[in-house]
């Protein structure tokens, strides 16, 4: 029962192209590497600008306001103006702070999303590197993100920063479990850990609907857990303004504060892109099994647009959460994770493994036998 696919996708990552060029001309390899580095940095800064602008506009719309309208057409240059302001601000380090760690923390916080940006498959031909242990790497690196926050809180020598950092540590470590359990469901479904491979495994249908209830449940779990890992409302107790002034980045100013800010927004993008990649098919167009007519129509839209649309949708949902829900208390947060999400996650993993065992997908996989 092989699904007839209108078009076959051959991922060709930049790393592969660089490796292929290495046998002929090392300069081409170097150009590929430098180009990808510049590309990641460009994507990083562009995303920061766009996301902050979009967040402000969306928030304003949710609250019947207008948002930025003054700087540039429709306030488009507002983020640029804010960045310029931050650049010219004093880089303040508290007197009794651990100066080295205080300066190191923002870079650690920004390191994680930068590494993740290089792994994401934006389209078949746009991906810096495709690791065969992609999911494992993503989880490990994502968990590393808490280091920046913890170090920032510790090195600031400020009780609010310290409490915020401790809360962030507890929260991220807790919710990492649920997020990983949700990721494991997709790994079970697709039988691979490579992100590109996961996208290709969804060419008969996205896992959110093809995995029955388990797929949808894993999607919801991952959405909630990743919102918590992002420290965004309703899980923003690490920087709860009413209690902790600004949490772990209370003592940061100027460009270092901007780094934390940027890291938060780029993290939001990477999490949304991962959600789209794992559950919504990434760059894969909307396919339904062997409906060749529909599939070929959907293939007309280029993959990069599919990826962008899905990621934007998930980003919008996360912003929607932020401007609707009230903040959770610390004990409620732990209650939600350990007593509700974690049992659901395990049950969901069990259900998913049963589905995989009896090959009960709407369009079953062709078993290699």
């Amino acid at each position, binding site marked *: 029962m092989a699904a007839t696919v209108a078009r076959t996708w051959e991922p060709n990552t930049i790393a592969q192209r660089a490796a292929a060029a290495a046998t002929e001309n090392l300069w081409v390899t170097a150009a590929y590497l430098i180009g990808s580095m510049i590309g990641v940095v460009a994507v990083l800064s562009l995303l920061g600008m766009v996301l902050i602008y979009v967040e402000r506009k969306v928030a304003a719309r*949710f609250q019947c*306001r207008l948002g930025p309208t003054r700087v540039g057409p429709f306030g488009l240059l507002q983020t640029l103006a804010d960045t310029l302001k931050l650049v010219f601000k004093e880089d303040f380090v508290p007197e009794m702070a651990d100066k080295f760690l205080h300066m190191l923390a923002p870079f650690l916080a920004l390191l994680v999303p930068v590494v993740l940006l290089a792994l994401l498959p934006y389209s078949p031909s746009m991906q810096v590197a495709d690791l065969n242990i992609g999911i494992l790497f993503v989880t490990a690196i994502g968990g590393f993100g808490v280091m920046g926050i913890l170090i920032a809180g510790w090195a600031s020598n400020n009780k609010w920063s310290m409490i915020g950092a401790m809360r962030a540590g507890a929260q991220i470590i807790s919710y990492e479990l649920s997020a990983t359990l949700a990721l494991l469901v997709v790994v079970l479904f697709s039988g691979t850990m490579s992100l590109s491979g996961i996208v290709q495994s969804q060419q008969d249908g996205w896992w959110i609907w093809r995995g029955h209830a388990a797929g949808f449940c894993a999607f919801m779990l991952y959405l909630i857990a990743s919102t918590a890992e992002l420290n965004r409302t309703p899980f923003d107790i690490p920087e709860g303004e009413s209690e902790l002034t600004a949490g772990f980045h209370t003592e940061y100013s100027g460009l270092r504060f901007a780094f934390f800010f940027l890291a938060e927004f780029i993290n939001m993008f990477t999490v949304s892109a991962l959600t789209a990649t794992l559950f919504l098919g990434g760059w894969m167009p909307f396919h339904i099994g062997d409906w060749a007519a529909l599939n070929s129509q959907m293939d007309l839209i280029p993959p990069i647009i599919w990826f962008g649309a899905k990621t934007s949708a998930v980003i919008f949902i996360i912003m929607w959460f932020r401007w609707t829900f009230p903040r959770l208390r610390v004990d409620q947060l732990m209650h939600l994770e350990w007593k509700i999400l974690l049992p659901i996650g395990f049950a969901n993993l069990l259900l998913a493994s049963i589905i995989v065992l009896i090959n009960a997908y709407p369009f079953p996989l062709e078993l290699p036998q």
Partner: protein
Amino acid sequence: MGMIQATQIVNEERPIAGKTVSVSVVQRLRPPTRFQVALLGMQGLLQGMWLTLTYFWSPVEVVTREYPENRDSLKITERFRGNLRFKFPNEVAHQTHSALLEQIAQETQTHPEVAENWIRDEDDTRWYHNCTGCSKCEEACPNASIRILTRHGEILDDREIDRFVWRLDSCMFCNACVLACPWDAIEMTGGFENAVFDRRLLVYSLNRLAAPRINLIQDEQDPAVRARMIDWRSRYGGPIPLGGTGLPNLPAIGAPKVQECPVSHAGSTAVAP
């Protein structure tokens, strides 16, 4: 009802000692199960998300107003508490100038432009007021922003208002003076554009006429006597604190040239005599 009620109050009639008495019975309800609580919680979350989505999709009213551009179409609500002023007898509260012109034109069967000339001319009746100088507003003011100066009116041989000094710089727009006024003589308007370059400009007198109440003037039939009841008072000037008199290096406010932007020369150049 989305709320989980722990108790329920039932009003009923009960026969007690041969009489029917209406009693309220408090019934303790079964506590909801965890599943019910979870369902209700999710229902609440979805309701909230639906509400914000409707705002996002079609905002009922965008509350932000892009202020300097929409100055002509700016709508000030009636309960807005802006600058204090004397209520003009021809005007109702929060009536704009154009609305006043319309009303006068309708009453006198003339064109609004004619009406404007009519009230713009040296017609002191425009500045008739209801104030008697009773100082109730001064007593009511929590910030001591109001100072009532009275004088002795020669014609009526009675006390009347001389200057109604209002300190905008210490006013907190609490409306207490308006509520305290027994004569309905003052009101809070929609004015809020108060930026000036000299804080002395924030202390001024509200009345243009040192005169008795409007009805006392209008009772007098002889126009010559009427005119003698009225004295012109300028906005700045007189024995007002910070009125600019006696301060070194600063020109007095009373001079019309300086009134444009009095402080711009005072800070930069050495000394303006």
